[in-house]
């Protein structure tokens, strides 16, 4: 018996076959994978997971593919680090960082793409494609190369150099669109209607999005099979937050962890904060905005899962907050200086919001808090190039160094 029982509309519950489709024909709600949980429950166990591969595929039983031959570059099972220095600074006694900046292409997107491409090949596609704010572009290009299938990658033309090179090196068909991400997305939805490709975030989305659940699974396993008290997650489309929530809930349902009482807090840049605005206005309508922020990977003005992310934050007792461009850079520096992790602008947003929530007492000092760092700073160097330590130039003599020494030591 297959573990995927089909697709189901998240809004009206209508059922569909597990093909490359993504919206309900009736109400346009998003389709989600429906599993045969009874069968999964009978065969999953902590012991089985613990002896699995050191990648997200240790959770194969809860991922939407039937094949055992998965297309993997070793994504996931990234470090969960106790953040003692940052915790001390912010007055948080049990702060952890989930460092997903160390995936094969340096962002959490490798989790979703590994699942998406495995499913796409399983469904018979020979071309993978995406609309991307950058990180997804790098990942789709790399996994396309590794799988030996064609890749088409659509990005806004003004992305950071690190992301354009980080995708281009794998030699995909890279298309720079003159417009913002929401315009790229709209174009891609029209292309997806007329080309028989596996667009990971469009027609493959129900499978693709499930990959993010593994961040929830891993954190629970790495904490010794329990859910954290509080999580802080960056919000772009809102999908990541909803899937980390789903991951913890699935573990709870399968009896692998106790009851989930985790508070879910979300972070957006001030220049693109439609979900946080809805939270603050207590309105379930997430109004689209036109992004203007250095955090380009979070610059989605019309977030598809905004409503669901809003709902989880509200219902779980979590918070939603923003930081401005300056605070984003401060956040990047703070994480680097205290914990030795160089994150991209999205991580700066998350750390900046963590700081705000801690300073205003919205995160309690004894709450076991996990902050999700989803991307690598080497891809967005422009953002901090003015803020880093510069080399002090000296001639190669001991005398020169001794003269400089009193001026440079910290």
């Amino acid at each position, binding site marked *: 018996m297959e573990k995927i029982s089909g697709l189901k509309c998240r809004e009206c519950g209508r059922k569909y076959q597990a093909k490359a489709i993504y919206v309900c024909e009736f109400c*346009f*709600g998003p389709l989600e994978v429906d599993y045969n949980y009874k069968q999964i429950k009978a065969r999953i166990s902590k012991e089985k997971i613990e002896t699995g591969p050191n990648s997200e595929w240790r959770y194969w039983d809860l991922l939407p593919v039937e094949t055992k031959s998965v297309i993997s570059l070793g994504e996931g099972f990234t470090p969960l680090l106790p953040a003692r220095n940052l915790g001390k600074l912010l007055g948080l006694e049990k702060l952890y960082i989930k460092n997903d900046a160390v995936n094969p292409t340096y962002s959490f997107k490798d989790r979703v793409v590994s699942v998406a491409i495995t499913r796409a090949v399983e469904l018979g596609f020979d071309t993978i494609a*995406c*609309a991307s704010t950058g990180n997804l572009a790098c990942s789709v290009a790399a996994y396309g190369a590794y799988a030996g299938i064609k890749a088409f990658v659509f990005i806004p033309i003004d992305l950071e150099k690190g992301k354009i090179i980080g995708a281009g090196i794998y030699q995909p068909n890279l298309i720079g669109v003159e417009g913002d991400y929401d315009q790229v997305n709209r174009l891609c939805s029209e292309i997806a*209607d007329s080309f028989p490709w596996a667009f990971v975030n469009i027609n493959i*989305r129900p499978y693709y999005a499930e990959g993010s659940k593994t961040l929830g699974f891993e954190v629970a396993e790495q904490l010794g099979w329990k859910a954290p008290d509080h999580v802080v997650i960056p919000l772009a489309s809102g999908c990541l937050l909803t899937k980390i929530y789903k991951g913890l809930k699935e573990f709870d349902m399968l009896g692998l962890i106790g009851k989930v009482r985790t508070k879910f807090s979300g972070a957006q840049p001030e220049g693109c904060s439609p979900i946080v605005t809805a939270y603050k206005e207590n309105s379930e309508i997430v109004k689209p905005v036109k992004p203007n922020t250095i955090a380009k990977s979070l610059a*989605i003005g019309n977030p*598809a899962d905004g409503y669901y992310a809003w709902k989880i934050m509200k219902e779980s007792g979590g918070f939603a907050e923003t930081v401005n461009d300056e605070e984003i850079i401060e956040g990047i520096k703070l994480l680097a200086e205290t914990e030795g992790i160089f994150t991209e602008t999205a991580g700066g947003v998350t750390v900046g919001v963590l700081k705000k929530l801690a300073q205003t007492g919205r995160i309690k000092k004894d709450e076991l808090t996990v902050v999700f760092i989803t991307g690598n700073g080497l891809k967005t160097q422009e953002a901090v190039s003015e803020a880093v330590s510069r080399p002090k130039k000296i001639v190669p003599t001991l005398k020169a160094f001794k003269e400089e020494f009193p001026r440079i030591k910290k």
Partner: protein
Amino acid sequence: MTTSVKIPAPLRKLTGNQAVVETEAETLIDLISDLDRKYPGIKERIYDGKEIRRFINIFVNGEDVRFKDGIKTKITKGSDVSIVPAIAGG
């Protein structure tokens, strides 16, 4: 005056598989009603009686109608209208 409307794949069963249909209307709500006369059932798929459904985006000349006047957005001659389902992040 006629306006061409791009129909996304999930709605094409209603339009006899046409990806682009012609309509005549002066505002978006008129346009939706006109489409419903020609392709019965299409209105309730995209409009909940008050607003455009949550998971639908409608663009007039490339601009999301939520930035314009919503369902009262004016449609002028030769306008380009697209109905697009919401898409996940990237």
